[in-house]
């Protein structure tokens, strides 16, 4: 779930743009550099962006019977590295907003921060850590994708809690409420995304 268009108060929406911009600018510089060194990589990056978009549109069956979607950012971060994912993720979120009305333009900064920055960095850090500790590829990919997914939705909950603190219990109370809706329910989906990512990586390493 992306934060819908217009849901955040204007000041906070602007603040999230300010937080996300340095990451996206840094990612863009990295991308420009990469394309300059190797013009063919432009096509590969386009393919990676399209892959991420389509991956996040796959329908995962969920416990409740309804369908949900993976974030795709964990797998993306492992495959393409976080700085590039901040740009590709930004492009994908822009397309989701304009083509599907999922998310929005005023909330683009907030959604980029949770999905294209925190999610990929957490996933990549978890992946790198487990690999360095000698963990297997499967375990590392599973943990990276699942925790990346979960981190994304924890950030979304925190963003909403900051915007709408509980009148009685403040930010913490609000975090409990939004976390209950967007993060706790996400745990089975995060596990699903982890399993799916492992299956995909297995398939890809065998090819």
């Amino acid at each position, binding site marked *: 779930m992306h934060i819908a268009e217009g849901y955040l108060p204007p000041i906070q929406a602007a603040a999230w743009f300010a937080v996300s911009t340095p990451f996206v600018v840094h990612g863009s510089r990295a991308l420009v550099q990469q394309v300059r060194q190797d013009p063919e990589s432009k096509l590969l990056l*386009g393919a*990676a962006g399209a892959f991420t978009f389509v991956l996040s549109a796959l329908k995962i069956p969920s416990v409740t019977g309804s369908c949900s979607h993976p974030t795709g950012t964990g797998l993306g971060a492992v495959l393409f590295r976080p700085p590039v994912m901040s*740009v590709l993720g930004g492009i994908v979120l822009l397309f989701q907003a*304009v083509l599907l009305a999922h998310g929005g333009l005023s909330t683009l900064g907030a959604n980029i921060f949770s999905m294209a920055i925190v999610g990929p960095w957490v996933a990549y850090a978890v992946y790198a850590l487990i690999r360095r500790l000698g963990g297997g590829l499967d375990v590392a990919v599973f943990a990276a994708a699942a925790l990346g997914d979960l981190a994304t939705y924890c950030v979304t909950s925190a963003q909403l809690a900051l915007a709408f603190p*509980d009148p009685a219990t403040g930010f913490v109370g609000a975090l409990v409420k939004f976390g209950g*809706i967007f993060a706790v329910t996400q745990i089975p989906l995060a596990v699903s995304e982890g399993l*799916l990512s492992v299956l995909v990586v297995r398939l890809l390493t065998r090819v």
Partner: protein
Amino acid sequence: MFALDVAAHTGPWRSRHPGEKALLSLGLLACAVILPPWPGALLSGLAAAVLLVGPARVSPAVVLRAARVPLLFVATSTVPLVVTVHAPIRLTVNTAGFGTAAHTAGRSVAALTCLLLFSATTPLSEVLPRLQRLGVPAAVTEVAALTYRMLFLLVESVRAVREAQAARLGFRTWRTAYRSLAGQAGAIFVRAFSRARRLEEGLALRGYTGSLAVQVEARRMSPPFLVASGGLLVLIVAVTAAVVVGPQW
């Protein structure tokens, strides 16, 4: 494939300069988000809705279907605004939250309508190359344009793969469904990168050496459209100001 994209490419405003449509719809969006929800968001949302089904001639069915997912988000995330958590786990309805909830949901629905006005009238292929003039590096807009082109190929592939898997009972149980999903993701990954490789050769034959520069159709901004859009925005701001400040007079 995406109803909003099809509407943007086939509607009566398709050949208008994207700048005009951006001024109008994103201007309304800014009003909806920044102005006090009552009556700023209401007026902006109403104006966008009238423009959508009126001059832009977007089918209401398309608008409503596109709005379903974001409205679901608005509905679920508004619940916490009217509920208070008391430690350890006791929930009470918080009537004081109704005001915030109504403001937030109203602002969001209005802003969503403005976003739909932009989405359903403005083809992305017209927007992306023009972003360069706003300072976005060419490499980024070109990657975005390639992503846009390729995602339609991949969405079609994933549909076909899914259908083929369903035909062979790939979604019979949870276990088979996961295997099928991984197969889809794997197939799409392989497909995406083989597409990129083949496109690379196809473009090399057309003389590609690093730049994907193209000629963007010159479109003239229509002064009447710009003036009318500006006028509408000023009117909304003025009416909102009058309503908000008015009672003090």
